[in-house]
């Protein structure tokens, strides 16, 4: 009996239109549409269904979209789930990562997608989903699709998937030992000769780029300084209006404190999943000490307090995402002429 595959694509590749149809809800069609036809031709499996969802719908109604699609799959038999390729289309890439992760968790089948290294979905999902390294634009479709098929066919055959560099997917954050045909002494001498000759070599351990920011110099005139408060401890209004994730956060929020003397338990809590929340939920000022800052303000220790505090969750959050959030927050602080920030981590 031949194996079965189901393919997920967005409204554009689903031939429903462009930006004007980006709000369409998920639909499932028997047979193959767009890239699903090529998958059907190349995979060692039949593509039985094509799922199409508007990128905006997936982006703004994520939970609903995922639920609809998981329900669509409930009565289907399939051996693999494929999404994309998404190239450098940001919303599409995030959608492919989101749905692949959800399908893998719910149905336990192998999932695979493809996107460009600049696609934000890559960093968000590479640890959960095999994401093939893809081109930046849709003209790379043929090449990207073939790359997906090569690994997908291995998955279908139950073969072991090799190392990221060899198979062409983004590293999933797992390093394992593997036997090769060259002794360490030979690899060492090659690397030494290469360094001496100034030739290229590949280190067997690549240290991730560590972006260390120097600590700012002390504030000269605290009495007139405007101070802003930020935290990565996940302090949010109890209804989490910005839907900040409990780990691996990609979202942040800011909350008005101009009219309050302190954060009240019951009104604020932590959404952070990396520590026991009891103490922070009882008194959120333990992480975000608005109470102390208000007292110090009255005492004239510093000039003024920026009317909002800012929150995200630090645990599992990548440096890349953290840097992006900072770039989004900084203009708001500059606009209000903030002189110094207190960033509290947990």
């Amino acid at each position, binding site marked *: 009996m031949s194996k079965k595959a189901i393919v997920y694509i967005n409204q554009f590749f689903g031939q429903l239109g462009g930006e004007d149809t980006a709000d369409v809800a998920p639909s499932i069609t028997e047979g193959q549409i767009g890239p699903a036809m090529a998958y059907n031709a190349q995979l060692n499996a039949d593509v039985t269904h094509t799922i199409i969802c508007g990128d905006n719908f997936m982006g703004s109604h994520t939970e609903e979209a995922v639920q609809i699609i998981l329900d669509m799959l409930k009565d289907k038999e399939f051996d693999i789930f494929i999404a994309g390729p998404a190239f450098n289309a940001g919303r599409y890439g995030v959608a492919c990562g989101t749905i692949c992760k959800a399908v893998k968790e719910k149905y336990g089948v192998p999932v695979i997608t493809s996107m460009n290294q600049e696609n934000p979905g890559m960093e968000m999902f590479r640890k959960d989903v095999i994401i093939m390294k893809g081109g930046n634009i849709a003209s790379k479709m043929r090449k990207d699709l073939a790359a997906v098929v090569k690994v997908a066919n291995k998955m279908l055959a139950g073969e072991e998937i090799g190392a990221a560099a060899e198979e062409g997917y983004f590293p999933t954050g797992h390093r394992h*030992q593997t036997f090769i045909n060259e002794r360490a002494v030979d690899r060492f001498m090659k*690397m030494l000769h290469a360094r001496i000759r100034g030739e290229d070599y590949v280190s067997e351990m690549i240290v991730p780029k560590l972006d260390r920011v120097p600590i700012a110099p002390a504030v000269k005139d605290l009495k007139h300084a405007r101070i802003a408060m930020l935290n990565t401890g996940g302090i949010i209004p109890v209804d989490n209006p910005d839907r900040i994730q409990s780990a691996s956060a990609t979202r942040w929020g800011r909350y008005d404190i101009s009219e309050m003397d302190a954060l009240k338990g019951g009104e604020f809590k932590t959404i952070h999943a990396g520590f026991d929340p009891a103490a922070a939920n009882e008194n959120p000022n333990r992480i975000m000490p608005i109470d102390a800052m208000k007292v110090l303000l009255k005492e004239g220790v510093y000039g003024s307090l920026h009317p909002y505090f800012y929150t995200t969750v630090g645990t599992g959050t990548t440096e890349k995402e953290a840097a992006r959030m900072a770039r989004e927050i900084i203009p708001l602080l500059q606009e209000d002429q903030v002189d110094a920030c207190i960033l509290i981590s947990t």
Partner: protein
Amino acid sequence: MKLEIGNFHVKDIVFGDSLSYSDGILTINKEEALDFIRQDKRITEAELYIVKPGDMVRLCPVKEAIEPRCRLDGKGLFPGYTSDLRQAGEGVLHALKDCSVIVVGRHWGGFQDGLIDMGGPGQKHTYFGELINIVLVGDTDEEFERYEQQKCNDALRRAGHKLAEYIGQCVKDLTPEDTDVYETEPLVKRSAEKNGRPGVVAVIQPQSQMETPGYNTLYYGWDMNRYLPSYMTVQEVLDGALISGSFMPTSSKWSTYDFQNFPILRRLIEEQGDEYNFLGVILANLNVAMDQKERNAQILTNIAVQLGADYALVTEEGYGNPDADYVLAISNLEKAGIKVVAVANESTGRDGGGSPLVTLDERIVAMVSTGNVGQLIELPPMPVVLGELEALGRDGNSGGWDYDEVLGPSVRPDGSVIMEDNGLFCGDQTVGWSFKTMKDF
């Protein structure tokens, strides 16, 4: 300094009437050898076995490995340890190659001991699976550490070194099949041409983190816990100046056999040619406190700078806490303008998701990775076990356990094994033999 090692390539080892070597066959009189071993009254039980590559035999708990050798000047193989002090690294040695003396506990193992499979899927996991081995299985009266997780293993380890020396005597008067010569001139006496080439130095960091004496690497018999980096030659390393300790999880261990044969150090001498001027070895160590680590990194870097090094090997005998010493050495050398090629194993955990080293530094730009201490390994039952397999799970071995709610015990009732790479005797072969690397998945 000139060291000549005359090689005798052992094709087979048998027990027979007298200790002798002829045409690749090493013959050992077992009873005489055992009598020799029993001269140390601490040894309460001793037996000898011969195991060969492909034999379906498992050795556990393995404590040490030594290459059998003799010195033609009649002096001791291991100065300051099993004999009087002498200058190591010069003169003529005869060595029985492709074989080793392996010491195994008859009953009791510990954190630092390991496992060797001579055949089956486990054979590839240790270098000693490729050698013909004389296996001393013994027990001792060292009651003070019988139930300790950390064992000095002093009586058994010394018995192994002495046995290797005892066996090596049989080739003293014979003509070697081939000879390796390791010769270097004093640094400032070298020709202008040689000294004009890029300087390469080797920084080695043997294990020395146990504060109590008796567990650490010995340097001319000196416990390296109280030690600051100093200069030595490869010839000294190869000629018994360093004796392996009994402390580190064993897959990261450098056995005495490893010191006697240190492949990377030998190749650094052999390949210098026109390309670089090999400056010798900076013998550093591994420490516990941060100020000790910083002091040693500073001293070893200064020695490298003063020697005129442009490039350096840095390698450590260990992982985890020792990574701090290793990374600091690399980082300091690179800061001083000395380009490093580093060699170590990693600890990314059973799922491979952990940090490769305990601390990282962007200055690590060239590293050879030799394995993952956390890798789970499953091995089938072996018809013959020398020692006591239960030691792997029972005695606190770094790669074994007696209970795990998911994996079950390391040693199963049928004799099969599930363990971490940590417990494979010198398994990650960081001295240079390793066929393993680390890849991102």
